[in-house]
């Protein structure tokens, strides 16, 4: 271990702010990309469900209309 204590580790020889900002921003950025993809997949699922529901509703409405026509 290069550093004597945890405090020295955080301090990074006086450069702590610069070193930790770099590392944190980098890993948060990369993690954000992973999260975005999870979110996107969820959006896709929702879109498919919504569209299928819509197709079902249109089908039902058509059936009702054709039934009404055949009843007359």
């Amino acid at each position, binding site marked *: 271990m*290069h550093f004597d204590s945890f405090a020295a580790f955080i301090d990074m*020889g006086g450069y702590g702010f*610069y070193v930790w900002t*770099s590392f944190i921003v*980098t890993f948060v950025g990369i993690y954000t*990309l992973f999260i975005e993809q999870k979110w*996107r997949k969820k959006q*896709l699922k929702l879109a498919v469900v919504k*569209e299928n529901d819509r197709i079902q509703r249109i089908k039902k409405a058509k059936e009702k209309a054709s039934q009404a026509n055949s009843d007359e």
Partner: protein
Amino acid sequence: MWKWLHPYAKTEETYALCGRLYPWFLWPAIALLAVGTVWGLAFAPADYQQGDSFRIIYIHVPGAMLSMGLYAGMAILGFIGLVWQIRTCYMGIAAIAPVGAMMTFIALFTGAVWGKPMWGTWWVWDARLTSELILLFLYLGVIALYGAFDDKIQAGKAVAVMSLVGVINLPIIHYSVYWWNTLHQGATISKFDNPSISSDMLWPLLLNILGFGLVAGALACRRLQNEILTREMRRPWAQTLLLSNETGAK
């Protein structure tokens, strides 16, 4: 000779391939980054001139290398897609571009944060920094271009052409340090010389470079999968996949 690639022109095959590759990218990446980062932050000796701030190199250099490598990857995909008319290549370009842009941003940001204590300034119009900034603009241009088209097939061809046009920038960044006398230090790792960095500082760097590369691969796989699903949303195979709540090849 390339027959083994042919099935991957079909999006369903490529989706499955990405699904299989993803864990092979992700877990080694996490392991390598964990080891490399901890080694670099805590165990590597401090630099004689720069003290502990040099540890930013363990993020900065991988980010910069990936930013250029991913653009080269986009250009190669663009070339293959245009010449052999393979649509999954275009989707690959769209998948890689945001990852490349993030890597470029990381390189620029960590470079600026490193430069402040070292050179006294966040930014200077040095040839290498400027070329990296231009690379960021190129990535953003590709992302904007792909998003601007409603017809994604047309969009794919457009970004393929854009990637090839922009790839000229890459040699300029790499050789700019030799061509101009600038503030930025010379290349640390070269294929032809011994690295000018001591080996106990070098190993974490190599681990992190590989780790970043694998992370980019994992992200690209995931993004390509989602791009394929977006485009093929109405196909039966995609619908079954999305609706089935599968947790396996997630």
